[in-house]
């Protein structure tokens, strides 16, 4: 089965670039920006992991739930604005590239430099190898 890619924007995102052929005068700030981006991504991943699935609607039918239609991909990553060096040696953000605005979404504050993630992806079904004694299907352990 094809593995779904629920982050259609992830591969298109261009986080930070440096102009070609120039000395990397802002390399320290470049690294800091990369680390900040990675930290934000980690925080969002934790939020997705801990928030849990959306609540199904309707009354439970006494332990006989019906499989529901899968929900569409809801999340879209918007690329961060590009950092470019200034003549004074610092880095400034350019205006972010245009992106598709989801219906009903409110724009971020001006000058924030970041797009707000509107919603989170559901857990994914993935294809895995058949379990074996070298790779057990699951591990029984105390609750954690």
């Amino acid at each position, binding site marked *: 089965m094809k593995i779904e890619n629920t982050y259609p924007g992830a591969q298109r995102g261009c986080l930070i670039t440096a102009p070609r052929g120039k000395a990397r005068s802002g390399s320290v700030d470049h690294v800091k920006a990369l680390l900040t981006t990675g930290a934000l991504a980690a925080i969002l991943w934790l939020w997705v992991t801990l928030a*849990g699935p959306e609540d199904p609607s309707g009354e439970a039918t006494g*332990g006989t739930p019906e499989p529901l239609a*899968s929900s569409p991909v809801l999340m879209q990553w918007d690329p961060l604005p590009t950092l470019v060096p200034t003549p004074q040696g610092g880095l400034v953000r350019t205006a972010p590239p245009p992106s598709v605005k989801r219906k009903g979404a409110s724009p971020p504050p001006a000058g924030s430099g970041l797009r707000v993630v509107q919603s989170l992806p559901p857990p994914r*079904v993935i294809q895995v190898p*058949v379990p074996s004694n070298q790779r*057990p299907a699951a*591990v*029984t352990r*105390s609750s*954690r």
Partner: protein
Amino acid sequence: MLEISFRAMGCWMKAMVDSDSPHAAAALRAVPRWFASWERRLSRFREDSELNRLNHRPGRWIRVSLPLWEVLQLALWAARWSDGRVIPTILPALEMAGYDRSFEKVPMGRYRSGSEDRPLGLDAWRLIRLNPETRSVFLPDGARLDLGGIAKGWAADQAVRHLKAYGPALVDAGGDIAVSGPMANGEPWPIGVADPRPRGRASFGQPALLGILRISSGGVATSGRDVRRWRHGGEERHHLIDPRTGRPAQTDVLTATVVAPTVVEAEVAAKVVFLLGSREGLAWLETHPELAGLVVREDGMVLASSRWSMDLFKS
């Protein structure tokens, strides 16, 4: 083989179906919603759960949903089967121990030490009344319910029962594991048994294992004090309460793993073995031919009941 992982009931969950069909994939995508629906009814950590609404209304007949009805029946069966060791009216003791919220939110050192007597209401499970004609429950005054492991085991059994229509299925509910039958190739499911000892060998990304169980049906569960524990006043505390004292059980068992016809039975039996201690717990297992168990003692010794066949368990 398809798999989905998600978080529910305070644990990591995993559901697997040995099939590549789109119908199996669609069923797996529904599993998180099933657990969310059950958690909304059965969790004591949600103020608006059906369980909490029942807890807040003792002394009257309350009609309940079928999931809560089924889990409550299992909880009362467990209390009788375990001779009062695994009881649903344990909530006052859990709260006294500081476990009044989802475990990851419990601050260390939360246990309130002191001279508290055994909390009231622990024995009230004997006075709970059920009316199957109206599916109603009567909680006596002082009875407050926590369905914890029973609810988790029930959910795993339910999920596997629904998934098996799409192929051989396995559900791992935070370490309580249910399987519907052998895998599609006819082989039993290989289930790792975690090694709780501090110096257990581990490979990258995988817990250290005592060995691999091979089971074709039923369930396996592990109870232990190797994870949910903390220190207070120089004493170790953990979340497995002995109803007879109302305090964390004093036992030489670090973890107890039991294989049974269903996950609920495995869950209850694992707790019983833990509470009884290694010697009495293994003796109790010998009186139940449908069960097999493995005990890891705090001194590192690993013991197995006579029905824990080494053909099924390879380290």
